[in-house]
């Protein structure tokens, strides 16, 4: 599904060059559930952002669904990720002014989906995550776990091929976290490709492969 070849990322501040990612090579196949681990500052999130095309690498080649991402223009890149990638964040990042229903509906609005179809899709999603009763509530009225559920529902509404999650349970207590990880696991079994960044060994274990990062390089990669 995606392939990174010799990907490096560094910042230059004056004469000081800070390397964030150093010569990363990574292939992920469809249907995999990859967990990226590593201490703070090891480059986990940067790697995830590059995979999600929200950020550009300084060097290297990147392919996504056989498209050479490093050759694409900004516009084409964003079109590619909008259609194929769903994002889930540690801080949920719901839109505060929109209620649950509208938060989930928004991506469809941007893709010009017809009203009737939108209604059906959102209703399905609410049903699937068992949050129908919460559809008129605003993010501030929900618990963290519920907010993250909405976040995931929003990511999935456009049926992406790849789900990227940056510490999805980082702000949750262990019970809520477990529920989210169960959900990921279920989604993966239904065929969704997932890449998550996590600090927790336990959560990493839900995946099919664990990649350990240290100081911007892949230290180890093991299948479970």
């Amino acid at each position, binding site marked *: 599904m995606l392939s990174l070849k010799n990907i490096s990322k560094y910042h230059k501040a004056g004469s000081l060059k800070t390397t964030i990612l150093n010569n990363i090579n990574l292939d992920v196949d469809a249907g995999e559930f990859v967990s990226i681990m590593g201490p703070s500052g090891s480059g986990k999130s940067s790697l995830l*952002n590059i995979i999600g095309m*929200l*950020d550009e690498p300084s060097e290297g080649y990147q392919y996504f669904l056989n498209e050479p991402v490093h050759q694409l223009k900004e516009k084409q890149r*964003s079109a590619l990720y*909008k259609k194929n990638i769903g*994002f889930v*964040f540690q*801080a949920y*990042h*719901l*839109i*505060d*002014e*929109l209620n649950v229903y*509208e938060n989930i509906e*928004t*991506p469809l*609005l*941007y*893709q010009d989906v017809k009203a009737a179809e939108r209604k059906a899709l959102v209703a399905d999603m609410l049903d699937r995550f068992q949050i129908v009763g919460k559809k008129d509530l605003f993010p501030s009225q929900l618990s963290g776990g519920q907010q993250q559920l909405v976040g995931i529902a*929003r*990511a999935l509404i*456009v049926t992406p091929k790849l789900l990227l999650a940056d510490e999805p349970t980082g702000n949750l207590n262990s019970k809520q976290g477990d529920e989210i990880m169960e959900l990921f696991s279920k989604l993966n079994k239904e065929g969704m490709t997932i890449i998550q960044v996590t600090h927790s060994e336990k959560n990493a274990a839900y995946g099919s492969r664990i990649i350990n990062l240290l100081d911007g390089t892949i230290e180890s990669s093991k299948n479970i």
Partner: protein
Amino acid sequence: MIKNYLKTAWRNLISKKFYSAINIIGLTIGLAVGLLILIWVKDELSYDRFNTKIDQIYKVNASIGTGASRQVWGNVSAPVAFHALKDVPGVINAVRIIQNYNYSTFRYKDKILRENGNNLAFVDDSFFKMFDFKLLKGNINKPFINDQSVIITERTAKRYFGSVDPVGKTLMADSKDPYTVSGVIADFPGNSSITGNMLFSIDRKRKEYDGKDYWKAMDEDWGNYFAQTFLQIKANESTKAIGEKLTRIHFKYQKSKSSDGVFQLQPMADIHLYNPDGSAAGIQTVKVFSIVAILILIIACINYVNLSTARAMLRSKEVSIRKIIGADRKQLFIQFIIETALCFTIALLLAFILIYISMPLYNKIAGKQMHFDLFSANVWQVVALTVIATLVASSIYPALLLSSFKPISALKGKISGAGNASFRKALVVCQFAFSIGLIIGTIIINKQLNYIHTKQLGYDKEHVFALSMHNMRDHYTAIKAQLLTHPEVLSVTASDNSIINSSSNTGDTDWDGKDPNTTLLISPFEIDKDFLPMFKVQFIAGRNFTASKSDTANFILNETAVKITGIKNPLGKRFKLHSLDGTIIGVVKDFHFASLKETIKPLIFSYRPTGDQMFIKTSGKNATAAIKLADNFWKQYNSNFPYEYTFLDDTYNAMYKTDQQTGILFDIFAGIAIFISCLGLFGLATYTAQVKVKEIGIRKVLGASVANITAMLSKDFLVLVIIAFAIASPIAWYMMSKWLMGYAYRAQLHWWIIGVAGFAAILIAFLTISFQSIKAALANPVKSLRSE
């Protein structure tokens, strides 16, 4: 989609109540004031335009005199219209309007009402055809049945006759001359330069010439410049050529100096805003106010732009999420435009309400009868122009900025804010530069008005009231003697002219050594012997009139007259005024007998104790008693006239009424500009405190005091206000010096004015900012540092 945008926009407004309120209040006031000013400007520019033939109508003005004493008069002599119609090809029609000062009251049955001579006029029959004043009743082809006919306005008809049909009814003028109403004309519009209550046939004026005087008939009287004359000219005719032709005709019939009575044509469209000589009159205020309106709108827009771009930083998270979940830049752009439009719609509705509420007060201050009609095309023209301009100016930049974030960095809170922070700073500087400019303008205008108010005029008008004598005139000496027996009356005198604002001029003078090619325009005053002592006019040479017989051939001049005529050692020298050859017996120190906008002109006093104006000097506490005493005589002699008197102080103030009105309006506008600017500054300060909350927390933990933090937060803004001050003050100074040039006598401009303005602006700005700064500085650092 649009529905969704509107919904988000609305919720955004509601959830950020503080910013929304600041934004909407600023916009509402800006729009309301901007619109009010533009309505005023539009009203000024609309004068006389309702006349469909306005492009063809010209007023004839006359240039009199040469060099320094040259004047251009708005009235010309009666034969001008007569000959223009008869002898000048290209002139289609001519109308004369001659004020009728013959009467002061009219009676219908028991109802006696007073009429000011300014509202009574003799007009040519063509009046009703050249202008668009609607003759509601009467025959447009023969408006006046005979010379005892009168045409009255609707309002006048209602005053005298109530609901009774006035046509055919008789109005008794001053209880002696009957006039029959032959027509009713629609009231003159508020924006008409020509106004009045009653119109008389010019044939009535014609009858005043009995063929025995120097001027045999009205249409041969080249000497009296009393007719406002309008000509309707064929398109493409040269107005210059017509003016020259009229001048040539004038000199053919009247042998006079080639400098007196040179006619020139002024488009009717210009008469409201320009003086007869073409110099700027009201147009200056129109220009100033247009600029002020635009400045206020710009200030309000800047507020919006500043606040929304500042807030964009706080909204960057939302924008980033929207981008990540699939929003195009275009879609975000539309979202923000819609938010602005919503804000504007609300502000506009509120502005309309505000305008409606303030219209009566505004009309009172501005001295106009403007209407705010939501369904009038005029209003919407102004609204559309204002709103579109403001909307474009205040929506595109914030929308562009907000939609241009890089999503991932914005989400992390890393926004390249440096660039647009300096943009915001530039806008704040701009805003405050305008405000400081307006403050300086206000101070200088007020100073000048105050100067006029307290200026030593060179004479004493304290506690003097004036009245027209009418029938008392024949008994003046006796009345005066009786009045003076009362201690309440300090002095009594008479004149034919107003000492406040002399209205007449003559060029008919001669003296030894006069250059035959020049004309001296001089204001003649006919006074009795007590006039000069009562007004405490000072002599610099010679003596006052003594009421001796020989005084009828004596003259007193003012300093300026002596200087301009060039008479050396004037006492005892010959001077000729009209047909009277006399001797100069005194010279008085110059005093202001006209508006301070004009320099002191030459003046001549002659001894004629028969003027119609009686002046009575009393004291502050005896004023009521003195007025009562004069009333007794009035009742005795003038029982057909309502008692009428005016204190000279009031007359004097009335002369500067327009200036006072302008001054008050300017005060209000400047205040509003400052208020809106501060509103924006307040919002920005709040934003800064929010953004710097972490920095403030850290500094406090490290031991910074509240004063340190307040200073840190306020410093940046104060620097901006100081920069604004540096930019605004020289410009405002320059523009106000130009404005002052309009006054011949002006207040001294001191540098402290600028200092005061700058200090005021900085103080207001500091108070605005420090409220937020202190609040931020007092906050508990534990709270602000415990984020994420």
